[in-house]
């Protein structure tokens, strides 16, 4: 890089401006990095709790459903669950966290989850389906949070790389180039002075 630098005063001024810009960018980016990681930790902490809860709920639902299924005749299960009445519509909106586009899930639930009569079905099925209904809110929230966390993590990685590049590559290089140009210019200056001194000597002699 140093080879094809125009060691001129213009270049020096330009580079000085770039250094100022780069260090301002570095400061901003590192602030962004800190903020993103703060948010990420916040979300992640929420996720682990939520995740545990959802997993417990789903396990419970599954268990009860198994029991319900086993205690009913197969044809009655088929008849009971053939046409569900519960309708679920999910719409995705985008929100912005630290300029990262994150999805925000909106759900619209209509109808009742229990879609069968009582005589040939097991009560455990009611319990399972109601638990599932409750788990659903958490499940959607969990999906939203996990996606957000993933997107933020990608952004964090990118920001961190940018900060590192600025800090360890671009800014040192710019400084080096500036020093090189400065040295070159100082050399030229000295060169010029010594040449002028020589000329003065010749004239005086």
């Amino acid at each position: 890089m140093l080879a094809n630098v125009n060691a001129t005063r213009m270049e020096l001024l330009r580079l000085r401006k770039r250094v100022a810009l780069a260090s301002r960018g570095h400061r901003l980016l590192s602030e962004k990095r800190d903020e993103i990681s703060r948010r990420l930790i916040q979300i992640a902490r929420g996720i682990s709790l939520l995740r545990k809860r959802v997993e417990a709920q789903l396990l419970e639902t599954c268990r009860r459903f198994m029991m319900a299924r086993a205690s009913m005749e197969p044809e009655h299960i088929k008849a009971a669950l053939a046409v569900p009445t519960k309708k679920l519509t999910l719409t995705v909106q985008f929100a912005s966290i630290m300029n990262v586009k994150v999805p925000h899930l909106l759900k619209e639930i209509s109808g009742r989850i229990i879609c069968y009569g009582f005589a040939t079905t097991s009560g455990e099925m009611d319990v399972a389906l109601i638990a599932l209904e409750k788990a659903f809110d958490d499940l959607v929230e969990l999906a939203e949070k996990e996606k957000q966390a993933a997107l933020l993590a990608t952004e964090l990685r990118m920001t961190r790389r940018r900060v590192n590049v600025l800090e360890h590559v671009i800014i040192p290089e710019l400084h080096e180039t500036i020093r090189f140009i400065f040295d070159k210019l100082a050399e030229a200056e000295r060169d010029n002075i010594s040449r002028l001194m020589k000329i003065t000597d010749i004239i005086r002699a």
Partner: protein
Amino acid sequence: MPQVKLRQSILEFSTYPPVGDDDWRYAFATARVRALETQMLPRATFQDMANAQSFENALDMLSAGQYAVPKGAAGFADIEEVLLQRRAEVRELFASLMIDESIVELFKSRDDFANLRLALRRALTDKPVGADYSPSGNVAPEVLEQAFAEENYAVLPGYVRRAAEAATINYYQDKDVRRIDYEIDRLQALHNIDEARRLGSIFLDGLFRTQVDLTNIRTLLRLKFTESEQIDVFLDGGFLEPAFYKHGLDLGYEAIGNLFFATPYQHLVEVGAGYLASNKSFLKTEGQCDRHLIGLLKSTAQITAGPQPIIAYLLMKEHEIRTIRLVLTAKKNSLDTRLILDRIA
């Protein structure tokens, strides 16, 4: 047939309704069923299975008897297959031992109603009528499919047609598919009880009315638990009137047992409601209901010859198959042993 008094009030028996008289035409069939009953799995086997270390151990306990799953069959689907096959065999035996054809038809109609539920749900919500109907009803699946495809109910037997029409009307009241089930449940219960009276069988009458009562008790607890606003779903024809259960909806779990004071169901309601309140589960209610019904079926032991023990054998065997499925499913999913024992109690 002797003229028997069929409308029985609940105060005329203490635990189980009467089982009726001997019918000596059934001497052979009854004896055969009695001998077969000795091969049924005792309760202790189920408890051992529930307490078994693992699913494989529980399965091994069955390997000596008729529920042996062929070696190398790993999946649960194979077990289901064996169980369904056993159920089909039991139903076949029942049909061959039963001298009164109409009783066989009556028990086959259970599958008709199940098929009807499925077909009507599909037809009324504009979904394809589809296949996979149970072949063991009185109406062949093809006939049913065709009837619904062409919307020509005339080929169906009277009780199926009437149920289909009534359920359709009920559905269009507010387009709720549950209404199909409610109406079919109601008509199925009435059909059973009417047929029992037409056949002059005290036992069947008592059996179906007990079943209606048990269904209503379960429904009552389920409505309370889900805080549902539906109240017109109790079935008619039981020993207790629907109004009785509606009254129960306003009571707390502790008080509900007392509502059934002086009925045979007091104990089971108390136990079931208590378990529901503490464990948020119907396992015990259902276990107790099964137990009550089995008790009624076992009371046919006093009959030396008659259709009652044969009907009892069919229902007990079906219950046994369900219990095996239940225990194995629970073991396969490594559920708590306590839960299994609560359910099969």
